[in-house]
């Protein structure tokens, strides 16, 4: 008796160990693609753009279309189209443009339940892939009204700004593509009876209709249910500005008119297809301009003693949020007109429009032989400045006077001042009124378009690209000195500094440069973004933990630091004392970035005295009281919130299989009812009644 009990117990435990599989049944039913890019919903004051799926995902029969012939044969195959109630079309990336998408939507109408794009391999990327408009940032009347409308991005499809009722995802990894095609070929042989592959796309977005509706719904909370659900977040990041040490004092006397020069660049971009922990693109726009901007800041900071001899302030400004209707520029001009630029000290006289001498912008630069210089308006520009610029750098070609400006933040600076106050100089890479960027505002805009082999790039590798930057920045710095200080001086920047900037921004933000220019705690915050490049995407408010802003803040302020402090051997406590006494500048104790330090002595640590200000760059539409978001005075972009995004592949069984499964299920149900009934009838044990004692 006892041995049989032990035997049964042993048998059961062996069975449990060997028969329990670690995989759940749901894992055996679905193949999940975790590295897919997805399209999200964004809203402006009156419309919504982007994609939306249902809350439990959009599923349908998978059908792959690789080229034009397959596309036409599919649309003519009415038997196939009628065989299933919903389709997920798997489309080659090269076919993603308005012609094919519109044809699919009109032919399939409600049967089109989703779109999955695929890229066969990194070497087969399309030649042009931009879903911004043909004339970017020209939708509402935010741009500067000019004589003619030029299609700067002529291969742009404009699909980013359309609203799709189904989800669109993109597979850009080769392994995912191989797996997809393997299953497709295995299952989708004939049209009707055999089992076919199905796909489920889930990218449910919370927001709907327009920013006005969404922001209103954000604020609704019924007191019975405490949780306020946020549907969308306004687009905005930080506008960061810094300046040379000579102006580190609050000017006691009145600010002179035309005494401030602004140098501008942007730090954001957008892509139609996002990926968590994926590349965001933005190598040509805005990374190239940002690297040029930072290198110029270093050069000017290096020559700060020359700039002491003149009285103009040069302020370096980065704008975040201009990719969508110039929100950041509107905020900057709004602050300037209302007297809150620069912030920080009430005793400081604000810089207003009449104090601005000129604005210089780096925009949409690419690795090109020639650069275009756009200037506006012709009545205010300084021709000698342009001549000096061209003379120092023959790569720069000045465009005809009063020609239409490319998409640039300066357009808003000029618009808000009616082009009557100061001139704008825009340096960009265009060729015959076309942007040189084939992947404008797309995730394909990566370092390979700048002839950089990113896998072999080291911290100090000199590339063609970094040499090109040096050849632009040095003549530019020379021109600034010639124009404002009045002396001719050959100035150089160390190639190493540019190499380091390129590495940090395009390959790995957790680089020695950022650790050398920040204190311990700030430096540690970059460790979480190890092996990722600087992300260039739409930032929303509240500002997420993106490393972009701390990076730009610390590097810009370090490059424009007061270099006299490089010669002082100070310790951390003294630095903190300085910081407590002075609220205008910031003092931080850092390890020091060797290539930037000119003095012969080197110390263990340096106290860095610098000036840095960061202001929220959210459009004024969200901060003005009682502003109706459907008005078009200011842009009102918001981005929806979402929770899970998933892409799964499964097999749709044949009709016969489904019927058999159903019949077996009903049989099992009835059998179990019968068994239970028989057991109740023939046994005396009743579990519900108490046992009679």
């Amino acid at each position, binding site marked *: 008796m006892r041995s049989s009990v032990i035997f049964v117990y042993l048998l059961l435990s062996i069975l449990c160990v060997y028969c329990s599989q670690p995989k759940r049944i749901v894992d055996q039913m679905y193949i999940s693609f975790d590295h897919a890019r997805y399209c999200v919903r964004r809203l402006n004051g009156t419309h919504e753009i982007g994609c*939306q799926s249902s809350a439990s995902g959009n599923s349908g029969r998978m059908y792959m279309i690789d080229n034009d012939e397959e596309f036409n044969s599919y649309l003519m195959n009415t038997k196939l189209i009628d065989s299933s109630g919903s389709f997920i079309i798997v489309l080659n990336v090269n076919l993603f443009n308005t012609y094919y998408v519109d044809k699919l939507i009109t032919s399939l109408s409600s049967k089109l339940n989703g779109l999955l794009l695929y890229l066969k391999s990194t070497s087969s990327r399309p030649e042009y892939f931009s879903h911004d408009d043909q004339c970017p940032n020209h939708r509402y009347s935010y741009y500067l009204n000019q004589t003619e409308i030029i299609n700067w991005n002529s291969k742009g499809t404009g699909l980013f700004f359309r609203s799709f009722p189904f989800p669109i995802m993109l597979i850009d990894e080769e392994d995912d593509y191989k797996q997809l095609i393997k299953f497709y070929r295995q299952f989708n042989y004939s049209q009707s009876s055999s089992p076919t592959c199905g796909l489920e796309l889930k990218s*449910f*977005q*919370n*927001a709907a*209709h327009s920013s006005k*509706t969404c922001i209103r*719904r954000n604020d*609704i909370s019924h007191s019975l249910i405490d949780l306020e659900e946020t*549907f969308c977040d306004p687009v905005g990041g930080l506008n960061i500005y810094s300046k040379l040490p000579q102006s580190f004092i609050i000017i006691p006397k009145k600010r002179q008119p035309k005494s401030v020069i602004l140098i501008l660049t942007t730090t954001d971009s957008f892509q139609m297809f996002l990926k968590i922990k994926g590349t965001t693109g933005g190598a040509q726009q805005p990374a190239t301009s940002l690297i040029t901007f930072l290198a110029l800041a270093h050069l000017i900071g290096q020559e700060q003693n020359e700039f002491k001899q003149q009285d103009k302030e040069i302020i370096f400004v980065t704008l975040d949020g201009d990719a969508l209707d110039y929100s950041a520029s509107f905020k900057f001009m709004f602050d300037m007109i209302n007297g809150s630029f620069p912030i920080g000290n009430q005793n400081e006289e604000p810089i207003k429009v009449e104090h601005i001498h000129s604005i210089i912008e780096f925009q949409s630069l690419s690795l090109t032989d020639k650069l275009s210089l756009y200037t506006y308006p012709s009545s205010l520009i300084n021709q000698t400045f342009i001549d000096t610029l061209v003379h120092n750098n023959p790569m720069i070609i000045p465009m005809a006077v009063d020609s239409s400006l490319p998409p640039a933040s300066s357009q808003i600076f000029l618009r808000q001042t009616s082009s009557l106050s100061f001139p704008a100089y825009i340096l960009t890479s265009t060729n015959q009124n076309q942007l040189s960027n084939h992947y404008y505002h797309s995730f394909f805009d990566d370092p390979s378009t700048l002839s950089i082999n990113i896998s072999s790039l080291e911290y100090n590798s000199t590339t063609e690209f970094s040499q090109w930057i040096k050849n632009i920045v040095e003549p530019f710095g020379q021109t600034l000195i010639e124009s404002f200080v009045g002396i001719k001086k050959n100035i150089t920047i160390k190639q190493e500094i540019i190499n380091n900037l390129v590495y940090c921004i395009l390959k790995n933000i957790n680089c020695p440069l950022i650790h050398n220019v920040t204190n311990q705690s700030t430096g540690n915050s970059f460790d979480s973004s190890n092996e990722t490049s600087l992300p260039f995407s739409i930032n929303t408010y509240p500002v997420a933990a993106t490393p972009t802003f701390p990076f730009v803040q610390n590097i810009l302020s370090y490059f424009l630091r007061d270099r006299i402090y490089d010669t002082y051997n100070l310790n951390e406590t003294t630095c903190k004392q300085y910081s407590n006494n002075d609220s205008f500048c910031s003092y931080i104790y850092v390890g020091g970035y060797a290539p930037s330090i000119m003095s012969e002595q080197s110390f263990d640590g340096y106290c860095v005295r610098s000036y840095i200000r960061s202001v929220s760059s959210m459009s004024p539409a969200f901060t003005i009281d009682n502003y109706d978001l459907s008005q078009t005075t200011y842009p009102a972009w918001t981005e929806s919130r979402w929770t899970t995004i998933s892409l799964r592949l499964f097999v749709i069984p044949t009709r016969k299989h489904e019927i058999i499964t159903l019949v077996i299920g009903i049989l099992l149900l009835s059998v179990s009812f019968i068994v239970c009934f028989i057991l109740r009838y023939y046994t005396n044990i009743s579990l519900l009644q108490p046992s009679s004692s």
Partner: protein
Amino acid sequence: MVSLEKKSPEERLNICRKYYLGGFAFLPLLWLINAIWFYKQAFKVEPYPQQAQIRKYVIRSVIGTFIWCIIIITWNVMFQVFRTKMGPIGDYLTFVVPRGYY
């Protein structure tokens, strides 16, 4: 469970009256219950002195329920059709704001 047979006719009339009067406090369900529960008493049982009064209450409860049904159905249909067209008021009246849809 309250069993009406065990109660005296005065008590039955009392209960019916209480339900009838209670329904005026914007409680149409009381009228509905009243009508269903006392239907048998009002029409199907042999007559007794209080039955006429009970019958009156039941009929009035039915009318009241019907009026309320009309009101509620009309409001329901109006809200569903015009929720998005009403502008901000539609959103403020919505208790569970829809996610992802207008």
